[in-house]
């Protein structure tokens, strides 16, 4: 991937993107769905779009998923 392609990918925005506030509000619901099966992105496409574009929220999602999938308390 050259620089223009990377820039283009970075600048593209998804109109379904719900933003950080809504994604953070429902992240526990989304993570639990994602841990159980693959339906999370289908049920919450706006959150999926956001997590794909927002590095910090994506990182939080990865961390929450790891915690949910981790050893039981």
């Amino acid at each position, binding site marked *: *991937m*050259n*620089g*223009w*392609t*990377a*820039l*283009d990918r*970075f*600048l*593209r*925005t998804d109109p379904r*993107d719900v*933003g*950080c*506030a809504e994604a*953070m509000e*429902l*992240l*526990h*619901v989304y*993570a*639990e769905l994602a841990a159980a099966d693959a339906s999370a992105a289908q049920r919450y496409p706006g959150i999926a779009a956001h997590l794909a574009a*927002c*590095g*910090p*929220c994506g*990182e*939080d999602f*990865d*961390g*929450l998923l*790891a*915690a*949910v999938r*981790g050893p039981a*308390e």
Partner: protein
Amino acid sequence: MAPADPTVGGIFPTPRFDPGTDQWVQMLSGAGPQREAGLARLHDLLLRIARGELQRRGGQLRITGPELDDLAYQAAADALLAIVGKLGQFRGESRFTTWAYKFVIFEVSAKIGRHFWSNPAVPMDAEDWERLPGQFGLDPARETERRELADAVRRAVDEHLTPRQRQVFVAIVLNGVPMDALVTELGSTRNAIYKTMFDARRKLRAALAANGYLDDETSRHS
């Protein structure tokens, strides 16, 4: 008159959650030794998650050992406070522990963001546009292309972004400031910074497409 809230006052039983969640809610909603034991157990759980998350994000921090563990304790303590404060808002949409983990993950993010400023690599408002091509992986040997990309983006930034959008774009894209660190520095929220950046990205893409650098489907130089 609005109907009575069935979860308040003990007239009706509390909503049925899964057994583990029900136990957490009962413990933390109660009083005395049962609640204290619940809080201690929750703190231990949050601390374990905070430690695991800090370890997972190890590359984002240049601290280890006791200082790192101190950050885990701070994140667990702050998350516990937030959870206790918002317990009445828990609606059982997930297991209680998943909901609680979310708070400590957010606290870890915020603390990593604040920690960034203890030793920033570049000032957040430095405008060295020669850094831009490298941020998008453009080969240093392709000097003409690097200059074309930097000049095109800089012109679009000059002509189309508001001062606030420019400030956020420069900090995040040129200088690699993490979004959570910028949130701390500007006293803002992640949502507000993301929205500012979202609008900036949309404007810049439209400007670069209008000037023939990018099109709707693929980049001109792909």
